[in-house]
């Protein structure tokens, strides 16, 4: 994984941003704690110094100079060395009592750096916060407390925060890189898969992990899209195959007919007959082309685009009325039971063709003087269209096959038709998200089409 690529990823930038924000807050907190601590400790120290000095002043007020001196001396002996410093100095600056006199003779606070007094040796100097007051008779009193611990404490805090800061940067950087890498790997996988697909391997699919996060959802959706594309391509391929395979026969037939006519010595009328037959054959071929194209169009039609409300009751009624005389000519009666006002979302032209094809089949593929039934009603929440006849029926093992392109049953091979009628019907049913099944009409064929109402 190349670093520049990694650093450029959105996730890394995002991680860096979060890290930056966090570090800024961290710093802000650090500084606040530092300053607050310093301030608080200093205030505390100052108030201690003040109370000390006030006590001494009270002693002075009570018992005068001797009392003060005695108190100071007592303090000096009882407290640990270097914790507190006292200095009582006269107008000339001569030390009356105490352990230091190097302070400015000005009332107020001073910060002094005083040498440690541990016996003889001179140690490092310590910082003291000193308060100086002026007593009557020009006496200067100074009390100071060691403020070293304040600095120590704050330094410790500062150090802690600095270490913490560095640690957070380190963890953040590592974490950010890790997260980006994981994310980048996933994206890379998708990219490679997609490239393989573009290069031509249409059966390739993206891997979907069990995480069900957005990337997995995306991969799953892309897979479904690929499935759909695969189906469409297979569809087109099938049409091409069909055209090549099954149109060869009638075209060859046509060629033979024309060649025979060419080489025969026919009269003018006989030639005319041959030409007319040839034209009829060409019409058949064109009809087959149109039917194939129509099936292809129906199958690739975007679902429900252009669908309107269609009254199936009206469609079935008009088709039945149109075909009734044709049926009657062959002694077949059509009995219909059509519930009124059954409407669905769909394509009126296609639905009309659907019903027409099925009813025409019943008329054409049955013996004379047999009845045909048409019914349209609501069945289990869907619309059910049932067309039944008393013909030879279709053997159960052939139920799936008859919907395939160009399939013709043995008994029908001699009748007009190209074997695509049921394929068109199947395509229309599927476009409307319905189901078509064939049943035994006991005897005969029962075609059952179930169509959902649609939204």
């Amino acid at each position, binding site marked *: 994984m190349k670093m520049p690529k990694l650093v450029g990823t959105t996730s890394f930038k995002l991680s860096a941003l979060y890290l930056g924000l966090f570090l800024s807050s961290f710093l802000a907190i650090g500084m606040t704690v530092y300053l607050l601590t310093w301030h608080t400790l200093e205030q505390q120290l100052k108030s201690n110094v003040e109370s000390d000095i006030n006590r001494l002043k009270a002693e002075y007020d009570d018992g005068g100079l001797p009392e003060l001196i005695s108190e100071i001396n007592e303090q000096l002996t009882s407290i640990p060395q270097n914790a507190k410093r006292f200095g009582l100095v006269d107008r000339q600056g001569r030390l009356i009592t105490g352990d230091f006199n190097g302070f400015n003779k000005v009332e107020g606070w001073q910060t002094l750096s005083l040498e440690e007094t541990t016996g003889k040796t001179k140690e490092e100097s310590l910082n003291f916060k000193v308060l100086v007051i002026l007593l009557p008779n020009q006496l200067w009193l100074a009390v100071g407390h060691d403020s070293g611990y304040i600095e120590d404490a704050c330094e410790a805090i500062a150090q802690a925060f600095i270490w913490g800061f560095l640690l957070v940067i380190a963890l953040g950087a590592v974490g950010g890189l890790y997260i980006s890498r994981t994310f980048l790997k996933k994206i890379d996988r998708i990219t490679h898969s997609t490239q393989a697909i573009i290069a031509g391997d249409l059966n390739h699919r993206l891997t979907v992990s069990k995480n069900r996060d957005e990337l997995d959802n995306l991969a799953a959706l892309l897979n479904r899209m690929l499935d759909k594309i695969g189906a469409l391509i297979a569809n087109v391929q099938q049409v091409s195959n069909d055209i090549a395979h099954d149109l060869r026969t009638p075209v060859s037939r046509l060629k033979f007919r024309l060649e025979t006519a060419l080489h025969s010595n026919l009269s003018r009328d006989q030639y005319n007959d041959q030409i007319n037959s040839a034209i009829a054959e060409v019409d058949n071929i064109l009809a087959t082309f149109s039917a194939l194209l129509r099936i292809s169009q129906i199958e690739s039609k975007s679902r429900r685009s252009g669908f309107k409300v269609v009254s199936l009751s009206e469609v079935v009624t008009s088709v039945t009325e149109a*075909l009734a005389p*044709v049926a009657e000519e062959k002694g077949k009666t059509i009995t219909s039971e059509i519930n009124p006002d059954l409407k669905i979302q769909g394509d009126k032209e296609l639905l009309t063709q659907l019903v*027409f094809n099925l009813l025409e089949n019943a008329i054409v593929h049955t013996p004379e003087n047999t009845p045909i039934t048409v019914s349209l009603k609501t069945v289990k929440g869907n619309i059910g269209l049932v067309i039944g006849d008393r013909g030879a029926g279709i053997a159960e093992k052939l139920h799936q096959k008859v919907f395939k392109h160009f399939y013709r049953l043995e008994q029908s091979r001699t009748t007009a038709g190209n074997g695509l009628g049921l394929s068109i019907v199947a395509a229309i049913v599927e476009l409307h998200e319905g189901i078509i099944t064939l049943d035994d009409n006991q005897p005969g064929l029962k075609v059952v089409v179930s169509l959902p109402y649609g939204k």
Partner: protein
Amino acid sequence: MKILIIEDDAQTRDYVAVGLKEAGHTVDAAKDGHEGLFLAQEGAYELLVVDRMLPGLDGLSVVKKLRSEGRSVPVLFLTTMSGIDDRVEGLNAGGDDYLVKPFAFSELEARVSALLRRPRDTFGQKILQVSGLEIDRMKRTVKRDGQLIELQPTEFRLIEYLVRHAGQVVTRTMLLENVWDFHFDPKTNIVETHISRLRGKLNAGDKLDIIQTVRGAGYMIHENA
């Protein structure tokens, strides 16, 4: 009538032009969309026969342009596009009729005649009278020589359409499309069967067959029998 055909395929163009000339029309031809649009805007044609697929400017655009200029000349589209929505698209663009290639010339001729008749249409007329037939469109009744004839709704629509196009050939496809709103080719002879029933009712009592079968084309009712 003066007809303009806009078609880039020479064979189709000649087929149509020659046929229409023989039928007595004056025919001009254009080879591409721009030439066609120009001629249509200049000349006063009574009918345009336009191929949808043209080099330069396609047929739909030519007709849309003409319609946007307020021209109401009847337009018949020729096309290899038999898609489910293509026909509707053509009609929405301003076309009046739509014929899928290849077509029999008789089909083209019948539709051309039907379109040319339009201005003198019987649209507003309540009662149509032709050759002894009287059709009352309000009451939906038919009388022949004064005698009322019982007709089913489809039969009525059938005779009404034939009478509206009296004197012209009406093809089976035109009947399927206009009387039944069927836009596909049936396997069975549904048009013939209905015409035969209609004849049975109209010609009852040894009367002359008022509906003439035109071989290879369709049916016709004479304007004056």
